[in-house]
C-alpha cells in the first residue's frame, strides 16, 4: 500500500479512491464479478497481465469463459456465494508446460450482505518451472553422482578383484617357491644318495677288478709255468710240433696275463682320485730311462732327453707310467733293422707345458690317429708285441691330470707324440 504522508487532520482518507489505487497497483491479479454467471465488472492490470488480455476484453465476460478449468472456478464461486466464506483451489495445467493455478476467493460483505467476491489467481508456472528444472538438475546431478559412485564402486570392486587376484598369484608363487625349495632339497638328497651309490659302485668295481687280478692271473701263471716245465722236462721226448704246442700255450698265457695287467693299470688310473702336485719332469724321465735301460741296450737304441725340463702339476707315479709307455712304444714300433731313435723335449705354451716324444718308427697314417688311443687297438696286429692298452693308458692318465694328448705323424715317417700338463 503506497504510503501517503500522514497529516494531523482527523479527516479519514478517501477510502474508495485509495482502495482503487491499491487494487490497480496490486501485483496480484484481482477481479470483481457480479450476478449468477459471474460477469466480470472490474479486472486490475495484474489480472489482465495474467490472462494476457486487455481489460476491455475481460470486463463483461463471464469468469468461466476467461479462466481455464471453468468448472472449478464456477464451483468455487458458488460456494463462496452460498457460504459467504473464503474458498481456495489449486489447479494444475500441463500444457504447454506444467503450471499451477491457485484460486483464492473471499466474499466482500456489506452489512452481512454479499456484494461481491474477491478472486485472487496465482500462476506459479514461472517459479515452478525453475524449481522443477532445478529439481531435475539436482536429480540428474544425483543420478550422475549415483552413476559416478556406481562407476567408482565398480572400479573399486575391480581393483579389489585385481588385488585379490594378485594376492592369489603371490600366494601361488610362494607356494611354488616352497615346493621348489622342497624339490631342491629332495634333489640335493637324491644327488647325495646317487653320489654315495656311485662311490659304492666304484668300490665294488675296484673289488671286482682286484679279484680278476688274483683269480684269473693265477691259472695263467700255472699255464705258463707248466707249459714251460713241460717243454723243458718232457721236451726231449716231444716232436718239434709238440714243443711248438707247448711254446704256444706258454706264450698265450703270457699274453693274456700281460693284457690283464695292463687292463688293471688302466682301470686303476681311471678310478684313482689323485691329487696333483709339482713334479719335476727331469726326475720322472730319469726314472723311466733307468727302467728301460736293458731294453735300450738290447735294441742298441739312442734315447735323448733335451733340456730344459719345467716343473708340472701332476701325479708322479701316473706320469711315470705315461712316459714309460710312450718311450717304450718309441723303442718298439720301428721297422726291422732300424736303430730306434727317441727324442724327448719340452715346450712352454702359456700356462701349459707340452712334452714331445719323437721317434723314427713306422709312423701312423692320419686316418688312424684317433684309433690308436682306443683300448685293445693294435694297429699293426701281431707284427709288434704289445696288448694295445699302452696308449689308452696314456690318454686316460693325462686326462685324469687335466691335460691333453695328441700325435703328429704320417705313414713311414716316424711319430711325434705329445701331451700337455699345467705348469706348476
Amino acid at each position, binding site marked *: 500500500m503506497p504510503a501517503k504522508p500522514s497529516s494531523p487532520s482527523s479527516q479519514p482518507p478517501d477510502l474508495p479512491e485509495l482502495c482503487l489505487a491499491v487494487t490497480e497497483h496490486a501485483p496480484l491479479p484481482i477481479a470483481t464479478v457480479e450476478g449468477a454467471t459471474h460477469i466480470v465488472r472490474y479486472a486490475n492490470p495484474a489480472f489482465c497481465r495474467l490472462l494476457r488480455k486487455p481489460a476491455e476484453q475481460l470486463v463483461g465476460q463471464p469468469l468461466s469463459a476467461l479462466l481455464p478449468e471453468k468448472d472449478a472456478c464456477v464451483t468455487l464461486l458458488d460456494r463462496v456465494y452460498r457460504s459467504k466464506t473464503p474458498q481456495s483451489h489449486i489447479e494444475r495445467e500441463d500444457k504447454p508446460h506444467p503450471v499451477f493455478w491457485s484460486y483464492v476467493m473471499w466474499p466482500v460483505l456489506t452489512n452481512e450482505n454479499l456484494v461481491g467476491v474477491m478472486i485472487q489467481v496465482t500462476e506459479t508456472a514461472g517459479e515452478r518451472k525453475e524449481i522443477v528444472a532445478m529439481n531435475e538438475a539436482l536429480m540428474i546431478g544425483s543420478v550422475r553422482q549415483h552413476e559416478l559412485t556406481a562407476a567408482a564402486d565398480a572400479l573399486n570392486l575391480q581393483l579389489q578383484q585385481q588385488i585379490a587376484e594378485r594376492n592369489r598369484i603371490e600366494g601361488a608363487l610362494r607356494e611354488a617357491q616352497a615346493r621348489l625349495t622342497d624339490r631342491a632339497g629332495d634333489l640335493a638328497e637324491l644327488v647325495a644318495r646317487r653320489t654315495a651309490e656311485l662311490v659304492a659302485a666304484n668300490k665294488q668295481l675296484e673289488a671286482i677288478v*682286484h679279484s680278476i*687280478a*688274483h683269480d684269473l*692271473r*693265477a*691259472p*695263467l*701263471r*700255472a699255464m*705258463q*709255468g*707248466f707249459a*714251460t*716245465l713241460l717243454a723243458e722236462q718232457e721236451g726231449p721226448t716231444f716232436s718239434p710240433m709238440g714243443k711248438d704246442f707247448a711254446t704256444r700255450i*706258454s706264450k698265450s698265457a*703270457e699274453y693274456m*696275463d*700281460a693284457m690283464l*695287467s695292463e687292463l*688293471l693299470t688302466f682301470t*686303476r688310473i681311471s678310478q684313482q682320485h689323485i691329487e696333483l702336485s709339482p713334479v719335476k719332469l727331469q726326475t720322472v724321465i730319469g726314472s723311466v730311462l733307468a727302467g728301460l735301460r736293458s731294453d735300450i741296450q738290447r735294441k742298441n737304441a739312442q734315447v735323448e732327453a733335451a733340456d730344459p725340463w719345467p716343473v708340472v702339476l701332476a701325479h708322479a707315479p701316473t706320469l711315470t707310467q705315461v712316459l714309460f709307455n710312450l718311450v717304450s712304444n718309441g723303442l718298439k714300433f720301428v721297422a726291422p733293422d732300424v736303430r730306434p731313435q727317441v727324442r724327448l723335449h719340452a715346450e712352454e705354451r702359456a700356462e701349459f707345458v707340452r712334452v714331445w716324444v719323437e721317434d723314427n718308427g713306422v709312423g701312423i697314417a692320419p686316418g688312424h690317429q684317433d684309433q690308436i688311443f682306443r683300448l685293445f687297438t693294435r694297429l699293426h696286429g701281431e707284427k709288434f708285441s704289445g696288448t694295445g692298452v699302452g696308449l689308452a693308458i696314456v690318454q686316460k692318465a693325462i686326462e685324469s691330470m687335466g691335460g691333453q694328448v695328441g700325435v703328429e705323424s704320417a705313414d713311414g715317417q716316424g711319430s711325434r707324440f705329445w701331451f700337455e700338463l699345467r705348469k706348476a
Partner: protein
Amino acid sequence: MNYNHTILLVDDSENDLYLMRAAFKKAEFNCPLQEAHDGEEAIAYLDGEGQYRDRAKFPLPAVILLDLNMPMKNGFDVLDWMRVQPRFRRLSVIVLSASERPQDVEQAFDLGAHSYLVKPRTLEDLTAMIRCLRDWLKYNQFPPLNEAARR
C-alpha cells in the same frame, strides 16, 4: 752264511707252490723248503702247534715267502700276529702276492713286511727272482731267533 736256512712258503695255491719249488730248483737254490697252505697253518707252524712242535722236522724259518690272499686268515693276519710276538720280529717276511695294488703294498709294510714282491708272469722271471733271493741270503746277516723266549 750258509744255504741251510729254512724258507717257509705260505700260499693257498698248489700250482704256485709247485712252480715256486721248480723255480728254486732252476735257480739252483737248495735250501730246505717248508709249506703252509693258509694263514692259520702258517701261524700254527710258527707257534709250534700240534705237529709243528717237532722243530727237527719243522724248523723255524729264516725267511717267509708270504702270499696275501688266502682263506682262513690271510697274509695280513699273519703279519699282524707276528708283529706282536717279540720273538718273530726278527723273522724276515717277504710278501709274494699277485696284487699290485698300492694299498696292499702300504698295508703290508705298515704291518711289518720287509719286502713286497709281485708274482711274476713267467717261470723264467720267477726263477730270476729266486736267484736274487739266493744271492741275498748269501749276504744277509740273520739274527738268531730267541728260542728261550717262546714260553
